[in-house]
């Protein structure tokens, strides 16, 4: 079972929940797919090591064959290729690695060469497996790093918990696309609700089963809960707004180890999710 934790707004508690949830489970794999800023490892006492590079294919032009026809540049969806009078310029960072240029070149003058944009790491102890991806600073494409990170998902682990990037755009979609269940963490504030609505819309298009965890319960207003009632979205758990949680968080201690009874509440949440999936 693959469960992904998402949020619309950043800073609502995805990482806290992902780490706390994974720690309550046995024989679990935790994947930190927030590759722009992976920070699950701050809460884990694990040594991680580099296991792979994340790469995308970019075009390389053979000028012995190129006739400067411009088919590649005029069809590039991302404007990564540009024809100037005497050559085709390749703008590496604009390239999404789709490969269209190499396929449509009438002279077969384009080959694809790999370019490293991120790194993949692994750490483990006993029955806990942890992987994360990290986009290289200055790179822009997190989605391919996430899809290559997902290739490290273990077939031996009965449950996989994935920490998604915030938002509702391509990186988040790539993270949740093959998940069995999605947990949407939100905070009961106007910003939290507004961003959450976009995620709900996205998850419905993707036909994903999902439920909401309300974090920092007690701040803001009741609009979030009213919205969930109206939209018939299950509220799986409420995590109180609590200074002790913040204080421990700043020292790398997840709320699981701060709030008494949280262990059984998280375990119960998984039981509820299993039921919802049947």
């Amino acid at each position, binding site marked *: 079972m693959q469960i992904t934790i998402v949020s619309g707004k950043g800073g609502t508690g995805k990482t806290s929940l992902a780490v706390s949830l994974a720690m309550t489970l046995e024989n679990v794999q935790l994947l930190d797919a927030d590759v722009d800023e992976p920070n699950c490892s701050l809460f884990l006492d694990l040594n991680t090591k580099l296991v792979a590079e994340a790469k995308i294919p970019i075009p390389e032009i053979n000028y012995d064959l190129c006739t400067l026809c411009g088919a590649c*540049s005029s069809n590039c969806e*991302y*404007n990564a290729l*540009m*024809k*100037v009078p005497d050559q085709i310029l390749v*703008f590496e960072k*604009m390239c999404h690695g789709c490969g269209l240029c190499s396929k449509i070149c009438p002279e077969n003058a384009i080959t694809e060469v790999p370019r490293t944009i991120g790194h993949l790491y692994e750490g483990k102890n006993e029955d806990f497996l942890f992987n994360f991806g990290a986009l290289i600073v200055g790179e822009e494409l997190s989605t391919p790093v996430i899809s290559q990170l997902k290739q490290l998902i273990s077939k031996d682990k009965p449950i996989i918990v994935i920490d998604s990037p915030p938002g509702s755009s391509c990186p988040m979609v790539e993270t949740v696309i093959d998940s069995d269940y999605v947990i949407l963490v939100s905070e009961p504030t106007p910003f939290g609700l507004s961003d959450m609505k976009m995620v709900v819309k996205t998850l419905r298009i993707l036909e994903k089963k999902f439920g909401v965890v309300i974090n920092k319960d007690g701040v803001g207003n009741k609009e979030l809960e009213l919205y969930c009632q109206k939209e018939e979205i299950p509220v799986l758990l409420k995590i109180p707004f609590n200074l002790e949680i913040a204080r421990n968080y700043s020292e790398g201690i997840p709320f699981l180890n701060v709030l008494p009874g949280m262990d059984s509440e998280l375990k119960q949440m998984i039981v509820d999710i299993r039921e919802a999936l049947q």
Partner: protein
Amino acid sequence: MNNLKVAIPVSSKDDNPTMYERFGRASYFCIIETEDDSSVVLANPAVEARGGAGLRAVEFLISNQTQSVIVPQLGPNADQALRRANITIFQGESLPVKDLIAKWKNEELSKL
């Protein structure tokens, strides 16, 4: 100065529009023939580009045989593309295009 085609990003099709503050996302380019000061204002096809608008705009200017541009500022991609296309770049300011061309003719604009 030689007679050249000089392009300036603008936001309207007015008679004497003011230079727009952005390059790739400008609605139009005003292209001036410096020989007789005749000008045309052409819609910039890059204005709706999802990404890489600066590059698409440079490609458009190349296809219109532009030899120089007067710009407010440039992103790194557009800058590189203009240089590789041998288009000379001049630093502009928010002035009507006729004033900018007058300054250009007096060699008062600095080359970037």
